[in-house]
């Protein structure tokens, strides 16, 4: 299926951009007339992925985060969040609830939240090259069926 609308965003890995990026994606998705809850789910999942790129991907260094959001005819939204950071050695382990390499203030629940709030979460990563997270969700919206 072809995307009917797409937007791209390139941001620096500064924590102040966490709120900017989730609001920007939510604002783009708004054209599907999502419910408040659907919008909240997307904001939360995007916030998790972008935070991971900032905190884990780039750690003390700074780099770029590339966000692409696409809307499809059937109301599906796909959001890609990519960084060129350190990468993930063991993706299965990283996605386990409560697993974190940071300890302290990190809950280890980012991937668990993404999986619970979105229909699909795909993670690909290469150590030393970076990480891409693809999030998908079907938006049913506030209004009756689209057809």
């Amino acid at each position, binding site marked *: 299926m072809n995307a009917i609308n797409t937007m791209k965003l390139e941001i620096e890995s500064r924590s102040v951009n966490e709120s900017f990026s989730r609001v920007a994606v939510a604002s783009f998705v708004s054209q599907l007339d999502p419910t408040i809850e659907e919008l909240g789910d997307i904001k939360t999942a995007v916030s998790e992925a972008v*935070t991971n790129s900032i905190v884990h991907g780039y750690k003390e260094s700074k780099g770029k985060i590339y966000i692409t959001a696409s809307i499809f005819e059937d109301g599906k939204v796909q959001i890609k969040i990519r960084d060129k950071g350190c990468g993930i050695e063991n993706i299965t382990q990283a996605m386990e609830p409560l697993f974190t390499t940071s300890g302290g*203030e990190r809950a280890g629940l980012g991937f*668990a939240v993404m999986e619970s709030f979105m229909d699909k979460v795909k993670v690909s990563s290469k150590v030393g090259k970076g990480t891409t997270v693809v999030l998908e969700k079907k938006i049913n919206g506030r209004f009756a069926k689209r057809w």
Partner: protein
Amino acid sequence: MKITFSDGILTAFVQGEIDHHSAVGIRTEIDRRIQKDKPDILRLDYSNVTFMDSSGIGLIMGRYKLMSAYSGQIEVVNVPLNMARVVRLSGIEKLGKITVKES
């Protein structure tokens, strides 16, 4: 952020959005008061939280650890309904008293 202390209970009224960025300032303020007042109970009031991701859980878990060091307890009250899902998913109910705001 409004923080009150009476009868051994330190209550922090967390405002606005909790993410990795904003959590830094929130926890610095709360931890300073914990160390000063040494409360028996830390109550985090989430009534006016408008957004949180798992950093909102990290904030609770971090304060739980600090309170445990003082043999204190933690409560999280008035979690708005649309944020209760993140809380439920985390299983932090085992650490302290958590209440969800009916609305």
